[in-house]
C-alpha cells in the first residue's frame, strides 16, 4: 500500500545556480556520500499528512515538548537539587532570612535573581500543562475516530505510555522546588504508598530514604525528572513517530479517499513548511502566556514545612483525577486484620485508578475481541458511526471529569456558595450515575445523527422551498446531495453482532459465549449505511 498522493506532479526543476546554492549542493552531496540518507529523506518527505485540525493535536504535544526541553535545560543551569538547609538571602522580601532547602532557594533565585529565570520557569511549567492537555485531547481524537484499530493498536499503547510518562514528568517536576505545595503533594503520595498493606511502609522508607520527608527525595526526583523520564519520553516519541510512518495516517472519508491511500500534503515541502510555522505558533502561545500569567508562585507558598497546609492545595491538573478519587471516598473505610490496618480509603482509589488506566491502555484489544474484527482500518470513523464506542468514550470522559472536579471540591464550594459536603455527595453520586447517563445520551445522539445522515443521503436536504402542486398539495423541495457530499455520509463500515459458533471440537467455549454477548451489546443498536442500491432506488423513485 503506497501513499498515492496529491503530490504535485513533476514540476520542472532547473538546477539552481549561484554561490549560495552551490554551497548547499556541495553540503548535500557531502552528507549523502557519507550517510546515503537521501532515500530515507525522500521516503519521509513523501509521507502524507491529512488536513484536518484534529490531526494537529499530536503536533501540539510534540512542540510543547520541544519547548519543555529547551526551557528545562535552561533551568538545570541554575537549579540545585539539594535539600540541605540554607538561609535565603535573595531579593524577595517576604522570604528574606527564612531557612529553606537549597532546592527552594535556588528556585527562588531562578525566579528573582537570574535574568529571564522567572520567564523560563513559567514557560517550562505552562508548557508542561499544555503538553499533557494536548496529549489528552489527542488521545480523545484517536479514540472517538477509531484510529486505534488494527494496525495501530500498538501505537495506541505507546501513546498511552507517553501520557503516563508525561504525568510522571509533571509530578516529579512539580515536586522539585520543595515549596509548601510540592511538599504537600509528596506527603499525599507518601500517604498513599503507606496505605498499601504490608509493604507500604517499607516502600515509603525506600523512596524517601528514611522517614518522610528526609533529605534524599528531591535529588532522586531530579534524576528521574531530567534523565530517566525524558529519555523514556524521547524514546517513546521516537517509536510513536516510526509507527506513524509505517502505518500511515488515518483520514476521514471523502472523495478520492479510500482504505488504500492517504490524501493530504506530503511532508516535504508543504507540510514541513506548515509544521515549522505551526511550531512557532505553539511556541508563541506558550511564550505569551508565560510572559503575562503567573504559574506556581512558590514565593507565596514558602518553603516546605510539614505543619502548615494551605487552603486550596491542589496538584497540577493532570494529577487532579487521582487527588479527586481520594477526596470522594467516604470516611471510615478502614479495618484491621491479622494486626494490619487495611486502609480501604486508600486501597480502593488506587484500585479504581489502576483499573481505569488499564482499561484505557488496552481498549483497542478489548474492542477487537468484542467485534472480532481482524480487518485493517485506515479510514477515520466518524464518532456517530460507532455509537457504542462513542458512548463508552463519553462514559469514560464523564468518569474522569467527575474525579477531576472532585479535586477542586473546595473551590467549587466557595465559588458557587455551596457546602463542601453537598458538593462531595453530589460528585459521589455523579461518579456512578454520570457515566451511565453519558453512555445513554451519547448513544442516542449518535444513532439520531446516523438516522439523519441516512435521511439526507437518500432524500437530500430540506431546501426550505415550499412548492404548491397543481392539485393544491404543498410539498417541500428536497435538494439532492452531490456524489462527493454523499460519499462522506455513506462510506462507513457495517458490522453485525458475531454469531456464536461451536469450535472445531463442536464445543461452545465460555470465551465464545462471552464474546457473543458482548458483541450483541456492542452492535445491537445500529443504523446500516446506505447501500448503492438504495441510493439508486431513491434517485429513481424521486420526482
Amino acid at each position, binding site marked *: 500500500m503506497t501513499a498515492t498522493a496529491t503530490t504535485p506532479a513533476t514540476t520542472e526543476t532547473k538546477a539552481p545556480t549561484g554561490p549560495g546554492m552551490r554551497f548547499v549542493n556541495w553540503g548535500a552531496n557531502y552528507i549523502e556520500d557519507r550517510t546515503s540518507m537521501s532515500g530515507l529523506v525522500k521516503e519521509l518527505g513523501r509521507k502524507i499528512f491529512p488536513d484536518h485540525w484534529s490531526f*494537529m493535536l499530536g503536533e501540539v504535544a510534540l512542540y510543547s515538548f520541544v519547548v519543555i526541553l529547551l526551557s528545562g535545560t535552561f533551568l538545570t543551569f541554575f537549579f540545585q537539587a539539594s535539600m540541605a538547609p540554607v538561609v535565603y538571602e535573595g531579593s524577595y*522580601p517576604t522570604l528574606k532570612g527564612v531557612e529553606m532547602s537549597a532546592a527552594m532557594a535556588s528556585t527562588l533565585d531562578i525566579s528573582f535573581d537570574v535574568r529571564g529565570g*522567572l520567564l523560563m520557569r513559567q514557560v517550562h511549567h505552562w508548557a508542561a500543562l*499544555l503538553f499533557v*492537555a494536548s496529549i489528552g485531547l489527542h488521545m480523545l481524537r484517536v479514540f472517538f475516530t477509531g484510529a486505534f484499530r488494527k494496525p495501530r493498536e500498538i501505537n495506541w499503547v505507546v501513546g498511552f505510555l507517553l501520557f503516563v510518562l508525561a504525568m510522571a514528568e509533571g509530578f516529579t517536576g512539580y515536586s522539585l522546588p520543595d515549596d509548601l505545595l510540592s511538599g504537600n503533594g509528596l506527603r499525599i503520595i507518601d500517604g498513599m504508598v503507606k496505605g498499601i498493606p504490608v509493604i507500604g511502609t517499607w516502600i515509603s522508607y525506600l523512596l524517601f530514604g528514611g522517614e518522610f520527608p528526609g533529605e534524599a527525595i528531591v535529588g532522586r526526583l531530579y534524576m528521574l525528572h531530567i534523565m530517566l523520564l525524558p529519555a523514556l519520553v524521547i524514546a517513546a516519541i521516537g517509536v510513536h513517530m516510526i509507527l506513524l510512518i509505517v502505518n500511515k495516517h488515518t483520514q476521514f472519508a471523502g472523495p478520492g479517499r479510500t482504505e488504500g491511500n492517504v490524501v493530504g500534503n506530503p511532508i516535504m515541502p508543504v507540510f514541513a513548511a506548515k509544521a515549522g510555522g505551526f511550531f512557532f*505558533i505553539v511556541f508563541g502561545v506558550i511564550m505569551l*502566556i508565560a510572559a503575562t500569567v503567573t504559574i506556581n508562585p512558590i514565593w507565596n507558598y514558602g518553603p516546605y514545612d510539614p505543619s502548615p497546609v*494551605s487552603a486550596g492545595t491542589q496538584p497540577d491538573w493532570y494529577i487532579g483525577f487521582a487527588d479527586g478519587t481520594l477526596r470522594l471516598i467516604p470516611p471510615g473505610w478502614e479495618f484491621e486484620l491479622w494486626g494490619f490496618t487495611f486502609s480501604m480509603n486508600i486501597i480502593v482509589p488506587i484500585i479504581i485508578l489502576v483499573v481505569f488506566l488499564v482499561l484505557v491502555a488496552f481498549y483497542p484489544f478489548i474492542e477487537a475481541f468484542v467485534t472480532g474484527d481482524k480487518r485493517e482500518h485506515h479510514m477515520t470513523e466518524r464518532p456517530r458511526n460507532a455509537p457504542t464506542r462513542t458512548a463508552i468514550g463519553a462514559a469514560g470522559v464523564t468518569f474522569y471529569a467527575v474525579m477531576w472536579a472532585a479535586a477542586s471540591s473546595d473551590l467549587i464550594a*466557595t465559588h458557587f456558595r455551596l457546602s463542601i*459536603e453537598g458538593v462531595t455527595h453530589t460528585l459521589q453520586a455523579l461518579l456512578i450515575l454520570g457515566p451511565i447517563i453519558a453512555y445513554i445520551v451519547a448513544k442516542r445522539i449518535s444513532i439520531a445523527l446516523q438516522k439523519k445522515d441516512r435521511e439526507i443521503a437518500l432524500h437530500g436536504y430540506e431546501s426550505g422551498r415550499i412548492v404548491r402542486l397543481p392539485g393544491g398539495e404543498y410539498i417541500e423541495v428536497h435538494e439532492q446531495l452531490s456524489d462527493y457530499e454523499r460519499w462522506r455520509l455513506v462510506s462507513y463500515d457495517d458490522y453485525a453482532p458475531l454469531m456464536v459458533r461451536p469450535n472445531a471440537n463442536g464445543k461452545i467455549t465460555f470465551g465464545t459465549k462471552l464474546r457473543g454477548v458482548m458483541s450483541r451489546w456492542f452492535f445491537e443498536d445500529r443504523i446500516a449505511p446506505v447501500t448503492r442500491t438504495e441510493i439508486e432506488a431513491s434517485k429513481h423513485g424521486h420526482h
Partner: protein
Amino acid sequence: MATSATRTRTRRAGRRSPLASAALLLIGLLATGGAYAALTAGASADAASESQVTKLADEGEKLFAANCASCHGLQAQGTEDAPSLIGVGAAAVDFQVGTGRMPMAASGPQAEQKPVQFTEEQIAALASWVASLGPGPSIPDESYLAGDGDLAVGAELFRINCAMCHNVAGAGGALTEGKFAPSLMGVSAKHIYEAMITGPQNMPVFNDANITPEDKSAIISYLKYIEANSSPGGLDLGNLGPVSEGLFVWIFALGGIVAITVWLTAKSN
C-alpha cells in the same frame, strides 16, 4: 423591627455617592479620633473624658437597643438567637459592625459581610457601650497597624497560623457546612488585628500569648505587602493555585491553539 430598618438603611447606603461617603468617613474619623484622644487623654482631663465616655456609651446603649437588642438582648446578655456580648470587648464590636457583619441580616451558615450600616462615630459609641459591660479586647493601637513589621516573619506566621483556612495568598478557602474563610485582600489593618484577637465565628482567637502584638503587626504587614504588590509573574488568576492554572491552560492555551488549527486547516481546504 431591626431587620426592616436595616434593609432600608442598606439600600440608602448603596445609593450614597462616593463623595458623600468620603465626607462621612472623614467626619467619622475625626469623631473617633476625638473620642480616642479623649479616652487616652492625660489625668488632668480625667473628669472631662469620663463624662465624654459615658456620653458615648449612653449613645451606644440607645443605638444598641434600637438595632441589636432584638437578637442580643437589651443588656447584651444574649438570647436564643445570638450570643451574649458581655466581655467580647470593643474590638469585637468594631470588627463585626465595622465590616458590616452586624447587625446580622439573613441567617445563613455564617454572618456575611454587607455594606457597613453605621458611621464610625456610631460604631465607636456601640463599641464603647459594649466594652463598658465587661473587660475584653480593645481596639488595637495604631502603632501595630502601620504595616512596617517584619515581612518574612509575618509571612511565615501567616502560613503556619492562617493559610490552612485563608490560603497562602489570603485568597480565602472553604470550611465545612457551607462556611468559608473569606479573602483577606482589601481588609483594613485594624480589622485584621481585631479578627485575630476576637476570632469571629469559626475563626480561632489568637491572643497575645499565641501571637504577640509585634507578630500580629508582622502578619498585617505581610498581607498589606501582597495586597499592594501584584504577582511578580503577571496575572495571578485569583491566587487559587493549580486549579485556576489548569482551567486556564485548557481554555486559553489549548483552546486558543485549537482555534488556530481549525482556522489554518479551514483556509487550506
